[in-house]
């Protein structure tokens, strides 16, 4: 296989790189949506009484059980939601099911004893939640959440089946038109790698900055 550098000329690269906007837009909006819906799922599962908590658990399990590409196609063809909305909802809903898991396990990692301690000082349940639970859960969840972030970042490429003009779709388009797949695919593989590495180092940095000795670490 010959690597033809001329396939990577400036105009082709710029055409592909303009897709970064959509790649990042889909990532951030879906992660945000997943964070909101995911915390709702987690709270529903942890704090609601049995018949209702099951409903939240089942929603999460169903979303985790469906391949992402199928979720896209269902939203697009069965619900007629349009390209962008299907992409955002598909990524967002699936991410919600995983972020919910991450948030739930973080909440459960905090001992009931600390909640008792908060209440015994005279705090209200809301104060215990806000002052004790959330600050700890948020810290504990960062490493797991970092993984979820890069998963969503990479899986925006699957929205290519919907025709969203992200770097994957654009790369595929150029590759077809010039008949050189290898060079273009290697190039966007590099782009994804750089995006993933950058996000990871930013999030790891954040974790180091807010990390508290002994919190969320196994003794």
């Amino acid at each position, binding site marked *: 296989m010959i690597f033809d550098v001329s396939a990577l000329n400036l105009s082709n690269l710029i055409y592909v790189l303009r897709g970064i906007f959509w790649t990042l837009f889909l990532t951030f909006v879906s992660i945000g949506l997943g964070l909101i819906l995911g915390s709702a799922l987690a709270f529903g599962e942890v704090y609601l009484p049995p018949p209702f908590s099951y409903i939240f658990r089942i929603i999460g399990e169903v979303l985790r059980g469906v391949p992402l590409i199928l979720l896209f196609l269902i939203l697009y063809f069965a619900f007629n939601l349009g390209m962008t909305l299907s992409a955002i909802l598909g990524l967002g809903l699936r991410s919600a099911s995983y972020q919910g898991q991450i948030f739930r396990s973080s909440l459960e990692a905090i001992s009931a004893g600390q909640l008792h301690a908060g209440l*015994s*000082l005279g705090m209200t349940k809301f104060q215990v939640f806000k002052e004790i639970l959330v600050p700890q859960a948020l*810290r504990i969840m960062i490493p797991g959440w970092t993984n979820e972030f890069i998963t969503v970042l990479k899986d925006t490429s699957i929205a290519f089946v919907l025709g969203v003009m992200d770097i994957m779709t654009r790369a595929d388009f150029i590759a077809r038109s010039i008949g050189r797949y290898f060079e273009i695919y290697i190039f966007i593989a590099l782009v994804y790698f750089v995006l993933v590495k950058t996000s990871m180092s930013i999030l790891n940095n954040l974790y180091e900055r807010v990390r508290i000795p*002994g919190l969320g670490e196994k003794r």
Partner: protein
Amino acid sequence: MKEVLRVENLKKSYHKNEVLKGVSFSINEGETKVIIGPSGGGKSTLLYCINYLQKPDSGEIYLDSELITPKNIYEARKKIGFVFQYFNLFMHLTALDNVMIGLIKVKKLPKDEALKIAKESLLLVGIKEDLWNHYPAQLSGGQQQRVAIARAIAMSPRIILFDEPTSALDVELIGEVLQAMKTLAENGMTMLIVTHELEFAKSVAHEIMFLESGVIVEKGTPQEIIEHPKSERLKKFLSKIAKGEE
């Protein structure tokens, strides 16, 4: 002497298992009372019911002659300190912040005032300045439990409940926690303590209550309870403790 806490005919069941079968007693200001008894006898449940961390099924609890109800429980808890078996410090806060959080969030004190009280409380239990900015995971068990005691006393409660405060500690760390509690007793703090430390009970308790199977079987001065137990059940329990089986 002024009565601080009165418990009347307190009952609590889990499923069909009746853990407290009608417990009554009272504590006056400045008194230290100790509860002893076998595991599963209802000691911890009794403490947890007093400040409604577990809701009693029936019976009354009076704090300074006022009946505690689900409505006034948040007010009541401010006046009832609680020290737990497993310390239960807030893991994301330093020793100093653990003591300050109740003063700031619950008592709404200004920060400088809260800081002053927190420092005094920590010094009282022997936690010196070099440890104030340590997180719980950076402290030994004995230090953590003393911070937990400081957290309770900083709120200037009317009474502090201790739930086996030394039973999760390594032997060599028990002494420092008991010493801190002794200091409180000498300062006139009203305390209700569940413990297996009989020597300690002897030296600080005004009264010892023997709780078994959900009832107070026997109560009296440390002399009466430890040296001259009347009931067979208490004798059996004391000999078990002496053998290190409880």
